[in-house]
């Protein structure tokens, strides 16, 4: 038998290049004002060639290890949540272990899109609780700029790059609550990455290179907004209820950083009291999919160090459509 689990530390890596709205508006015939009004995004970060998805995942992991005063040798399981690692196999998790010098731990990647981090946290919690693992390194890492069409008016200003990590380990008291998760698989077309690799290959061999369409991300904004606000606020409340808590018992709300309008409307739907600190990392760092929650957690704790050890509600949601949410105790001060 295992033990209760908790988040021991958080770590982050943000790409060096900050890209303001002014840099991307021309290609989508938009404006800084339009983007800010609809998404709250002022800037985002795009990784360059010296910052691969794997590099970012490793740097975030090293930060989390340092903050927990652990080394990679203390880790027995690695889960990387990502939809933009550019190799089908082997996984980003094994590449990370090889580079960090612990080529023996259990390691795998998962695809639950923007919900991937919360899915992985739930799995890590279950592994520790079952005794399967003692210390799990959970990473959300994305380089979505590789899979975004810079001229797509629905997505070019939303998505961004980065990596965040947490270490989940044993604990005397419960530090991670029951997960509330599921899907709305009838809405698989609401957020997609198309075409498939098979179509890319077939197009490439049959036509000129200029006709090859790359698998870029696309989304139906209104549909996703409706689902995110009205279904996800209910799911988040269920995650609270599963932990025996209400919105009045939490100190922070760290939802997936999809859109400030979604975050604010969700908080309104949930009757979130003003005492709850709401993460809004998206304003300056964009939507980093599976990386957004650990990055937002890192930013929140740097801005509000008094929140270390306090109670936060997490909820991730994205392409699938899939979602997962849970209450966690934020990691102690490093």
């Amino acid at each position, binding site marked *: 038998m295992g033990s209760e689990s908790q988040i021991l530390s958080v770590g982050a890596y943000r790409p060096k290049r900050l890209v303001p709205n002014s840099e991307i508006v021309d290609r989508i015939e938009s404006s800084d004002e339009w983007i800010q*009004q*609809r998404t709250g995004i002022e800037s985002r970060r795009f990784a360059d060639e010296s910052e691969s998805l794997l590099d970012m995942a490793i740097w975030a992991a090293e930060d989390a290890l340092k903050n927990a005063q652990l080394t990679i040798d203390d880790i027995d399981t690695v889960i990387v949540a990502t939809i933009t690692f550019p190799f089908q196999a082997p996984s980003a998790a094994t590449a990370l272990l090889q580079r960090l010098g612990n080529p023996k731990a259990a390691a795998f990647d998962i695809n639950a899109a923007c919900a991937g981090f919360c899915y992985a946290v739930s799995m890590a919690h279950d592994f520790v609780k079952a005794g399967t693992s003692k210390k799990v390194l959970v990473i959300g890492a994305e380089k979505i700029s590789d899979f975004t069409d810079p001229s797509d008016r629905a997505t070019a200003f939303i998505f961004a790059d980065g990596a965040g990590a947490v270490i989940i380990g044993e604990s005397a008291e419960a530090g991670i609550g029951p997960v509330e998760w599921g899907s709305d698989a009838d809405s698989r077309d609401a957020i997609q990455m198309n075409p498939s690799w098979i179509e890319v290959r077939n197009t490439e061999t049959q036509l000129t290179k200029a006709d090859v369409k790359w698998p870029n991300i696309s989304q139906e904004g*209104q549909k996703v907004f*409706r689902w995110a606000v009205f279904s996800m606020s209910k799911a988040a409340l269920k995650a609270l209820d599963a932990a025996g808590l209400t919105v009045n018992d939490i100190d922070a709300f760290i939802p997936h950083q999809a859109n400030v*309008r979604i975050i604010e*409307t969700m908080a309104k739907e949930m009757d979130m009291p003003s005492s709850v600190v709401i993460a809004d990392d998206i304003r300056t760092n964009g939507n980093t999919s599976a990386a957004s929650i650990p990055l937002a957690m890192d930013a929140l704790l740097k801005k509000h160090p008094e929140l270390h050890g306090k109670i936060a509600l997490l909820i991730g949601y994205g392409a699938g459509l899939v979602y997962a949410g849970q209450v966690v105790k934020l990691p102690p001060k490093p």
Partner: protein
Amino acid sequence: MALASADVLAGLKEIVEEVAGIPAASIELDKNFTEDLEVDSLSMVEVVVACEERFGVKIPDEKVTELVTVGDAVNFIVNASN
């Protein structure tokens, strides 16, 4: 039983004022949500969901873009309640 147009308009005015902060007095049947009232696509989703709850009707995602004017929304809701 179908809802009365006047009741739906009155309710819709309250919802648009609440969601988008537009004074109810300026909301009339011929007003275009986007151009006249500056209700953007995301606020429109909030208006639609509030209408569903208030009037007990279902307004599917694909219908939302067809609701161009306040009158379009009133007619849709009245017909859907039938």
